[in-house]
């Protein structure tokens, strides 16, 4: 039988905050175990949680980026279960009244994935398994996590990855999260089920827990789809359960079935009053929101007359897009600026292994340089020769051109004697050209340029040569 794959994702994204969700401990990765802890995140007697305002703001920004409705009144709940990595044996999360409702992620190609909601919660500590015992490190306990819960709208492993890629791009773009996959900044629980093609009712779903690499998610989904297809084809029922992906074996394994599901006894967190937001507050935060990458791509194509490919590359990196836009506004020539950023600037950043925002090249300097080029004050080779210097040391292009006399000579009267001299010195080349050897013209242009110390306008030289040789 043919089946349709139904996938929904619950993605935990670590928020970019300096402190934990409910206490003032730092969030640095890789610190000595139990060195970023306090009575609150250790669940000491008497300690109470307080709300990290930035975590609330970042989650609201993520919600606005994803088209969610922002709840004016949301609430925290306790999720009760005993586990050694839990400092209080309950996790503070949002079960009933999350901060962001609805929303959607648009995939390249036009499909839209609906979101159910986004809620805030705290991370747990880390367990290290050793021979004969386990060790607990609570540095991670209390780190703010935003859980983005999708509707079961995804239809393939590829689509799931496209969704996660788009989500990751937007979260990095909005400055909400670093989404560093190696540090576990973005972890997903994957729900997957199959249903016969054309059937409306969902099949029995299986949840695969806590995966942090996209390749792992893809492989686990492919495995699980194949496993379920095979089971259904054989007439075996799918058991609703939670499974674990073993990347080494390339298989999923049962963790617990529905019958053994925990009873989490959620109830409202009495230590934290509700989160109350006004429309004014939400509007103020919305002002800090960057344009979504897709919208920015469209706008840059229109505003600067640049091709889709260029707009795509530039808009994917918020800092690069900001650099480009500032430089293009300064130069007054979007297409020229895009060509230069895409070719010359990116070549330099690749060579130096840096980002343009960390170089000495300001968008204003690039804009000024391209303005000089566009006005034919300098020629292309001069501009190209100046760029690495601006990249490494900075500086004002107009001042440098003036100081070093690099302005190009576009005065036919000044160039004509140089053309004549070049023709006189190279009778054989002239003869070749006249015999139909077009390449000979290039050699002659070079000779004139050399005589002008590189400052002549190459176009002018070429047209003077053609005139004289015709």
């Amino acid at each position: 039988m043919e089946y349709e794959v139904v996938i929904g994702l619950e993605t935990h994204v670590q928020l970019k905050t300096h402190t934990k969700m409910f206490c003032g401990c730092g969030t640095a990765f890789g610190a000595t175990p139990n060195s970023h802890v306090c009575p609150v995140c250790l669940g000491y007697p008497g300690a109470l949680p307080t709300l990290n305002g930035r975590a609330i703001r970042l989650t609201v920004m993520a919600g606005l980026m994803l088209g969610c409705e922002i709840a004016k009144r949301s609430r925290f709940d306790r999720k009760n279960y005993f586990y050694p990595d839990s400092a209080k044996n309950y996790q503070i999360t949002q079960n009933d009244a999350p901060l962001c409702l609805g929303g959607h992620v648009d995939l390249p190609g036009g499909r839209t994935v609906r979101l159910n909601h986004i809620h805030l919660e705290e991370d747990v500590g880390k367990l290290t398994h050793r021979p004969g015992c386990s060790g607990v490190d609570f540095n991670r306990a209390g780190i703010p996590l935003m859980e983005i819960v999708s509707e079961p709208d995804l239809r393939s492993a590829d689509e799931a990855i496209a969704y996660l890629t788009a989500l990751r791009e937007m979260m990095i773009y909005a400055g909400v999260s670093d989404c560093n996959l190696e540090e576990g900044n973005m972890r997903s629980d994957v729900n997957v089920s199959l249903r016969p093609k054309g059937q409306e009712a969902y099949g029995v779903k299986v949840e695969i827990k806590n995966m942090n690499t996209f390749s792992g998610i893809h492989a686990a989904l492919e495995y699980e789809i194949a496993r379920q297809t095979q089971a259904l084809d054989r007439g075996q029922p799918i058991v609703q359960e939670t499974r674990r992906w073993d990347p080494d074996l390339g298989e999923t394994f049962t963790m617990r079935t529905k019958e053994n599901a925990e009873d989490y006894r959620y109830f409202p967190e009495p230590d934290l009053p509700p989160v109350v937001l006004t429309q004014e507050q939400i509007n103020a935060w919305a002002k800090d929101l960057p344009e979504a990458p897709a919208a920015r791509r469209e706008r840059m194509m229109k505003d600067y007359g640049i091709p889709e490919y260029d707009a795509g590359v530039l808009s994917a990196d918020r800092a690069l897009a900001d650099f480009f836009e500032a430089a293009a506004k300064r130069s007054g020539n979007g297409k020229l600026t895009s060509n230069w950023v895409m070719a010359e600037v990116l070549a330099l950043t690749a060579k130096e292994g840096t980002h343009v925002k960390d170089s000495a090249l300001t968008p204003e300097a690039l804009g000024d340089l391209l303005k000089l080029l566009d006005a034919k004050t300098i020629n292309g080779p001069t501009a190209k020769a100046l760029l690495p210097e601006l990249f490494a040391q900075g500086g004002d292009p107009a001042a440098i051109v003036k100081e070093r006399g690099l302005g190009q000579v576009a005065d036919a009267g000044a160039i004509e004697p140089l053309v004549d001299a070049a023709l006189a010195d190279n009778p054989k080349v002239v003869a070749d050209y006249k015999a139909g050897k077009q390449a000979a013209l290039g050699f002659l242009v070079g000779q004139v340029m050399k005589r002008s110390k590189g400052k002549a306008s190459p176009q002018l030289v070429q047209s003077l040569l053609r005139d004289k040789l015709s």
Partner: protein
Amino acid sequence: MDDIKTLTLAGALEGLRAKKFSSVELTQALLDVMQPSQADIHAFVTIDAEGALAQAAEADRRRAAGEDAPLLGAPIAMKDNMSVIGQPCTASSRILEGYIAPYDATVTAKLRAAGAIFLGRTNMDEFALGSTTQTSGFGPTENPVARGCIPGGSSGGSAAAVVGGLALAALGTDTGGSIRQPASHCGIVGVKPTYGRVSRYGIVACASSLDQVGPMTKTVEDAALLMDVISGHDPMDATSLDVPVPRLADAWTGADPAKPLVGMTLGLPKEYFGDGLDPEVRALTEAAAKRAEALGATLREVSLPYSPYGIPTYYICMTAEVSANLARFDGVRYGARVPCDDVLGQYLKTRAQGMGAEVKRRVLLGTFVLSSGYYDAYYNRAQKVRTLIKRDFDAAFATCDLLLAPVTPEPAWPLGVYQDDPIRNYLSDVLTVGANLAGCCAMAIPAGATAAGKPVGIQLLGPNFGEPTLFRAAHALELR
């Protein structure tokens, strides 16, 4: 020095300021009474004689240097659920044996900044779950006035310390009457402030939405002195409210000494004077109401129609929160651990051995009311009944400034009885849980004694942040 047993906090501060005695002398005098009393009264779980004397010496040095502070050199007792840096903090539970608090509770820090001296930690019902101080993991406390009887609870150690002359004043916590009821049984003053008035940070949580810290003192004036130090917004407690804090020590200044309660309406909630009320308690409460009238107050009967649902509602809300708040006591990060080869076994045994019967009963009940299939019938319904109970109080305070009522249905009962009859114990909270469910302020003040000499208090209840009126009336009505 005056008789240490009757010395008030205000009187001691006066003596210290007038240099009639030093803080070291005062502290030593209290220790001299306290230490031998441990054998029978057992008001303290931990006594820090050395630390207290060192703090007293420091206070004397500061005073000699010309400094003063609101409580400079005054020895105070802390309930064993309040964090004091470097001291044990067990909430009278065996499961917290070995734990040393690495931080000060906000009230501790405020008292410290005001110059108070920490004498020791008072006994209590384990995790504040009880109304007799008999559920303490370290043995009961005896009522120093009504000998052979319970001191009340859960802040029974604090009440016994104050009335026994073992501390000038103490702090307690009140979740369903745990300050007012022992204050009444011991014949002292006990305040349950408005929810959000005093920080809960650093107080071992019993039920987070009901708990408040408050003073237990010999006089209303002493209670005001402590309230003025411990009240106010705390950024570390998200439930503490950032609202103005009027000085309570001024609450009664300017009142007509003959008719201090003129213009004040006191409501008598008829449900609080029902059939279950002990006749002597009723008579003393009615006498207090008559005195109020004589002092200028207008009396009127009011109704709190949902009060019969107070105990069921309270025992659902409270135990639900308790079940989660006490989950952290698992022998992992601190406290006592019963080692085991597997994690589950370690949890089961550590908690089974570390917690007493009443704690287990309440944790089980709280777990049940939140569990799948029962949440709606119990927890969810109780939260809604809580709304009705709150509305009762709102309606009453719309027509009265304060309510006047008995604190407990009967005076202190003998130690050891009703120990395995939970409902009998729970019902003794019937007149006090309302204030906690509604969040309003309340206060127990001495109102006399039974023929057998058992102290009886009355309580005054006020609207949210109605402490100034509450203290004004209490100051006029307390029997000293």
